[in-house]
């Protein structure tokens, strides 16, 4: 039996409390927008203009043109030509350069004799992704230079105009491989993951700390009415935030969007049920606000970025990472959002993800309501 008046009453009370604190209400909308804008401009994963130094023991025409091959690309910018290893070590330790390329003193002599020569490349490995990308750039530039060598009449007797196999690359969905096209939809998902959890994590524990929770314990309201009554206003507020964030991603950052807005909105409501529910769940298992807040921050903010597939695909994670990723609702939703934003896919492609989110929501609310019931 649905007792609408009680249910409505709880929702109304929760709304009033939300609106009463004007400063908080402003924060609720300003904070996610600011986070989105700051990260939108700040989280630039395109590795470009990497400061690099050369230690050229030969100083010949050929070694100079080898150096130019690096400098002329937009990926590297020359920091300096160093004289010895000690100077280079200093620069790399203080983080002034990210890579050092050492050209041996017999560089061109060997090449003119049609032999192989070696250049040493030292890359600062502190930040593995960056190191990996720098390594990729270096090998590509080196490869192109090698191809040119084979065309050089002075060096080889038989000219190879082109290598026998050429690779033609086409990137679908994001032809220019711009990082904003994968960051923006990702940011929508991650922000809507930790932010509702943080909003929700204080709802019940606050009343526990101040003792007003007893009003609920003695009221005729059923646990599920209380939980949903408290969740719904927050889901509504978060949905408004979703609309704001969507507009920012499309209008300010001009992320590619070719999908169906209506489907995106519908599935995001389901997603917000999950994330607000997760917050309320944290709220029921903790005793003090500090603990609830700490737990919410630790279990959502960083894991959402790391494990959801936002930066790195879930497929390349190790087992323990993949297990953690299953506990984060963002993992399921991210595929949906990127699919809609960049691929313009219809809902039928995401049935599995939608179903997973639905199961997630059911489980989290069931546990929360049971947990709340026990106390009564």
């Amino acid at each position, binding site marked *: 039996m649905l007792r609408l008046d009680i249910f409505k009453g709880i929702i109304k009370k929760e709304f009033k409390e939300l609106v009463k604190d004007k400063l908080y209400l402003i924060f609720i909308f300003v904070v996610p927008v600011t986070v989105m804008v700051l990260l939108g401009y700040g*989280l630039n994963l395109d590795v470009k203009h990497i400061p690099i130094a050369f230690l050229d023991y030969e100083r010949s025409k050929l070694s100079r043109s080898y150096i130019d091959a690096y400098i002329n690309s937009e990926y590297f910018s020359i920091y300096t030509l160093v004289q010895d290893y000690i100077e280079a070590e200093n620069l790399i330790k203080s983080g002034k350069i990210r890579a050092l390329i050492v050209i041996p003193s017999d560089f061109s002599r060997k090449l003119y004799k049609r032999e192989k020569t070696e250049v040493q490349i030292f890359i600062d490995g502190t930040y593995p992704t960056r190191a990996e990308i720098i390594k990729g750039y270096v090998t590509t530039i080196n490869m192109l230079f090698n191809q040119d060598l084979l065309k050089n009449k002075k060096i080889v007797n038989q000219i190879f105009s082109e290598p026998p196999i050429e690779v033609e690359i086409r990137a679908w969905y994001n032809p220019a491989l711009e990082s904003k096209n994968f960051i923006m939809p990702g940011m929508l998902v991650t922000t809507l993951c930790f932010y509702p959890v943080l909003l929700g994590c204080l709802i019940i524990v606050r009343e526990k700390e101040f003792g007003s929770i007893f009003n609920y314990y003695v009221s005729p309201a059923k646990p599920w009415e209380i939980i949903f009554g408290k969740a719904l206003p927050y889901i509504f507020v978060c949905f408004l935030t979703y609309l704001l964030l969507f507009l920012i991603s499309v209008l300010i950052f001009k992320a590619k969007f070719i999908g169906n807005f209506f489907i995106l909105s519908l599935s995001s409501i389901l997603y917000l049920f999950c994330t607000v529910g997760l917050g309320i769940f944290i709220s029921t298992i903790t005793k003090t606000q500090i603990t609830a807040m700490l737990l919410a921050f630790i279990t959502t903010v960083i894991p959402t970025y790391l494990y959801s597939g936002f930066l790195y695909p879930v497929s390349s994670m190790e087992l323990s990472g993949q297990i953690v990723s299953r506990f984060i609702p963002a993992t399921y939703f991210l595929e949906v959002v990127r699919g809609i934003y960049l691929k313009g896919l219809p809902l039928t492609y995401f049935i599995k993800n939608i179903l997973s989110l639905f199961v997630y929501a059911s489980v989290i609310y069931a546990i929360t309501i049971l947990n709340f019931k026990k106390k009564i």
Partner: protein
Amino acid sequence: MRVIILIKKEFLQLFRDKILIIVLIYAFTVVIYTGGKGISLEVKRFPVIIQDQSKSSLSREFINKIRPPYFKILAFVDSDKEIVEWLDKGKASLVLVIPPDFERKVKKNNAKIQIIIDGTMSMTATIAISYLSNIAYGYSLEIVEDKFYKRPYKLPQIEDKVRLLFNPNNLSSWFMSLLELFNMITMVSLLLSSAALIREKEYGTIEQLLITPVKSWEVFLAKILPTVLTISTLSLFSLFFMVKGIFKVPVKGNIFLFYIVTCFYIFTMSSLGITIATFVNNLSQAMMVILVILVPMLMISGAWSPPEAMHPVIKCISFLSPMRYFLDFGYGVLLKGNGLYYVWKDIIGILLIGFSLLIISVFRFHQTFAK
């Protein structure tokens, strides 16, 4: 003497909540473990499907070179329709199309193979492309050497001997376990200190404290010191047992230096927490302010986006982030083995921000309460 009693009170309040202690221990053990173990930053097992229209020995030989750990061949497909489906569903991220005339064209030196890549994750896609281009070029060279020089002959080529410094095998676990440690230090010290002050504000016990002869700086000190002590102990524990013990990170630098500066850093983050607490009325508000400061701080202090590629405005903002200095310091000392000579600027940055914030919060506190 008064300060010691105040500190004792703060410690009591901190450890009263059992779940809080569990959460703290969780943060400095499990979080660091899963971060180091679970996340792999290299491209691994990149899902590939292949459309081999040539079905020749050359094409098979080429396909044989696409191997784990970088790539994982999921299927061979025949039609374009299947390709679209695999990519749309996101089950495969890269398609290799070998044209029917591959073998004939290779002999004529103008074969083309096509790579279709899912550009959704642009960063990973870039890395995967560079792996595959290298494989293709290596194979090209083999063919050239085979064809033109039957006898063992080498072509004039430059070999790039790449060596990664400070992390020779490019292990994600070294970077990730340390990053999670730095993240936890940042987050927990900010949250604990601000929550400790706000609780007093919310309960109104701050007024009781103020009518006693304690001075406001003593109140702050009592809030900050327990945080510094607790977190620095936890992080040292975590450094030895998790980072060094489990992930075998060869900690090169001076651990004592690291410990001292970590204490400074926790002090700075706590001051930030206290400053926030003096500006807001309740924990919900504080949480929103912390969120808007913390999330950008975690993401744009240099761990993810390289500072050289940053938007100039963001770069300026990042100079205000104490975490920027701490990351520089932490990785510098622990991985690179840097001494004071390299990191003194970072230490000054951390302390400068910390003391400025403390002064702001004392000032603000006087304005609101001690009128």
